[in-house]
């Protein structure tokens, strides 16, 4: 549609009619081409190389254009992928995967060698993968990353074309869910070598073995398109023909696009969820990330005082924050580990390991403890800074927590909202009094959270330390690794220790509010890793 650029403001009305007609026709054409999904992302797709990709959008896209040995389904359940089946050795250290016969989108066969090649490429220090650490459980991976051993020594072997044998350093119960995530996907060696530096930098210079293939993406574009991959082994069950991804960086814009029918789904933020609570299209997605406050125990005696930490925790009305302020599906944190991440015999981890006194409000008790803490550390009042991200979420929690803490009396809290990277390096360097941190699980196992707060861990910014905690975490990853019930008890004890001592102040578990058009069915969401699987989605 060409319009003379000399068009003046006054004539807007006249060509508006033309426009309306144009818009009308385009919207009818898009609705007639059924089985097209228009999906919103809040940032662009930066990479499609499973060895170097680092972000959520890449993970989500790759999860739909590629397939690993296994697939993650609803509620993080594990399903067969390229592997028809697998067996685990008694000691839990060896996995044998039996592959099905399947093809890449260019017709090449997907073989065991493609997995060996991809895994070795990711772990190779030359690749500089930022996710290589996820391979830590695979035999020799750490040594290879540190250039102590050759890449070929990695604990993965191809036996013939259709059998993969993986050796681990120790039993790892969550290994199947790791294998299902994009950084463990196969890569077609001849294609990687053919395109060299250009490999996976745009839609064409790549091959796909998943339900969809990328058909439009320039490498830097804000929009990209997936189309059904007819070469996919399970293609007959893939119903969507096309998925258009559109980057909407402004939530207001995204909502307007949704309202005007240009998007079939959109995330809500700020005050938007409150206004759609009663809508049939409103959905809340729980994510496996917990927001908590770390208190710097190295900087000041006050934060080292357990009573002070408990007082700060007891002062926060988490229910009010989650229901009245956020109202987006976020829930109060019952512990460090996110609720719904793991369960044993139908009992959620937090039901077993939650400590309510460390995650609920009791202002009278809080005031009393705060007074005692002030007395014990010999001061009349305490002033400090609460550091948080300079994002809407960071501002929300900082403003709210500050107002709650003010109620303790003899306290002065100043807020400091910083850009993410600045906040991160300040907390890692111990340049803070209190900081709002967040952690999202990489895989559905409590250890993804619990390993953070061992003494000397680089994510343990507050430098809280407990021998009992360290011992339990070490047991869960070491001697009890292959004994699921002992391991469970270890992890439960670890979180209880952390909460009883108020090593951190858990605040809330993040939820994402979303609007989805009612004719979109079969979406699969899971709270860790790639989040979305569109292979069974369809438009009714």
């Amino acid at each position: 549609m060409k319009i003379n650029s000399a068009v003046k403001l006054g004539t807007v009305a006249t060509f508006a009619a033309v426009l309306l007609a144009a818009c009308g026709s385009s919207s009818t054409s898009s609705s007639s081409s059924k089985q097209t999904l228009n999906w919103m992302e809040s940032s662009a797709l930066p990479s499609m190389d499973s060895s170097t990709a680092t972000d959520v959008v890449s993970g989500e896209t790759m999860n739909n254009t590629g397939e690993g040995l296994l697939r993650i389904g609803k509620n993080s359940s594990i399903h067969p992928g390229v592997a028809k089946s697998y067996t685990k050795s008694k000691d839990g250290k060896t996995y044998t995967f039996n592959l099905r016969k399947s093809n890449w989108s260019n017709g090449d066969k997907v073989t065991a060698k493609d997995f060996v090649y991809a895994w070795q490429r990711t772990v190779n220090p030359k690749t500089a993968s930022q996710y290589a650490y996820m391979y830590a459980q695979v035999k020799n991976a750490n040594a290879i990353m540190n250039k102590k051993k050759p890449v070929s020594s990695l604990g993965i072997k191809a036996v013939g074309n259709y059998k993969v044998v993986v050796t681990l350093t120790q039993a790892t119960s969550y290994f199947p869910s790791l294998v299902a995530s994009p950084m463990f996907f196969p890569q077609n060696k001849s294609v990687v070598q053919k395109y060299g530096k250009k490999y996976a930098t745009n839609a064409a210079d790549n091959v796909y073995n998943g339900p969809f293939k990328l058909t439009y993406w320039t490498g830097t574009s804000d929009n990209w398109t997936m189309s059904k991959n007819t070469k996919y082994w399970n293609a007959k069950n893939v119903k969507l023909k096309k998925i258009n991804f559109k980057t909407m960086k402004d939530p207001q814009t995204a909502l307007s696009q949704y309202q005007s029918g240009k998007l079939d789904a959109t995330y809500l933020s700020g005050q938007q969820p409150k206004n759609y609570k009663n809508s049939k299209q409103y959905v809340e997605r729980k994510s496996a990330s917990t927001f908590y406050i770390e208190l710097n125990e190295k900087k000041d005696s006050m934060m080292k005082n357990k009573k002070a930490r408990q007082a700060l925790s007891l002062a926060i009305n988490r229910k009010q924050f989650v229901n009245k302020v956020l109202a987006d599906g976020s829930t109060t944190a019952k512990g460090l580990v996110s609720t719904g991440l793991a369960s044993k015999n139908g009992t959620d981890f937090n039901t077993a390991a939650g400590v309510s006194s460390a995650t609920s409000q009791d202002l009278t008790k809080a005031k009393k403890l705060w007074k005692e803490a002030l007395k014990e550390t010999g001061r009349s009042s305490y002033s400090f800074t609460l550091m948080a991200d300079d994002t809407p979420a960071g501002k929300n929690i900082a403003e709210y927590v500050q107002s709650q803490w003010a109620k303790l009396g003899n306290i002065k809290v100043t807020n400091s909202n910083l850009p993410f990277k600045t906040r991160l390096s300040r907390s890692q360097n111990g340049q803070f009094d209190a900081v709002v941190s967040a952690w999202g699980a990489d895989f559905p196992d409590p250890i993804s959270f619990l390993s953070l707060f061992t003494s000397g861990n680089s994510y343990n910014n507050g430098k809280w330390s407990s021998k009992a905690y360290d011992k339990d975490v070490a047991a869960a990853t070491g001697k009890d690794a292959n004994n699921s019930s002992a391991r469970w008890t270890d992890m439960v004890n670890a979180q209880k220790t952390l909460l009883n001592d108020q090593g951190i102040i858990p605040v809330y578990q993040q939820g994402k509010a979303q609007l989805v058009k009612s004719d979109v069915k079969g979406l699969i969401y899971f709270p860790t890793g790639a989040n979305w699987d569109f292979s069974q989605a369809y438009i009714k």
Partner: protein
Amino acid sequence: MADTVKLPEDSFKRINADDRAALDSEKIAAPSLTFAQDAWRRLKKNKGAWVSLIVLAIVFIMAFGSLVVSPHDPNAVHPSYANLPSKIPGININGFNGTLVQAGERIDAYKQAGASSKFYVMGTDYLGRDLFSRVLYGTRISLIIALVATLFDLTIGVTYGMFSGWKGGRIDTIMQRIIEIILSIPNLVVIVLLILILKPGMTSIIIAIALTSWTNMARLVRAQTMEIKEQEYILAARTLGERPMKIAFKHLLPNLSSVIIINTMFTIPNAIFFEATLSYIGIGISSPQASLGTLLNDGQKNFQFLPYQMWWPALVLSIIMLAFNLLGDGLRDAFDPRTKE
């Protein structure tokens, strides 16, 4: 022969010094006025400027007075009173009576929140804080940022521009290169770096704006100086051996005043806007501090459902801008000796 005309004794009167003075045709009847007095007199004649001055005075008094007296504590949080619309006692017009359209129906939001007896003139924000108090608070912060930036504009920018334009030649070229380099560094880099080097917050923003904003003024003043310095009256002053300093203050400055004042009127919104832009992209001042920029930005996000959260700060900002502009116009006319009466 000569008929002497007999005149009565009192036909003539000897005049004294006082009478002579009264009859002097060269005498200027009006009291003699200085430049500033004259400007003030002309400013008072300009109704728009006069009203603006009063409006600005009120805004300043309210914004800075809210340090002492404020309708509510701007940071007091009442989550149960969140997002209440404007309610002004005695006015029953939709938009000002505490009602809100929710799911297609107009409901009394105050009743719903159990706050029927309360009044929030501009409503409340997402944490239930009184928007009116926050707007006052935000106005204060924005004004401080703008005024400090303007101060730098006036001191550094004008001096630099006048010097550069007056000297000309090599000095001018070097000074212009320096400006070009400063102009060529995107402000954002400077600001992010300052936020990290200094303590994050208002100081960094003020310094960053100050460091980058004076260049515009300097360039304009320089251009005007180059033009004026070729004028006859400057030449005359030089020929008479007037000191350059005196020429600068007596002759250049008054003739530059129009350019300086207009540009100042742009520096103020620019500084306020710049801060607003910073808060939009995520490196503004820290919560729960507020500026008009952060308030607008917060309101902008909820415009579809809670339009008043954007309209109120926008209204206040526009009033301030309007007042500054009209006052600027009035000042320009008042200062400019060429303006016709």
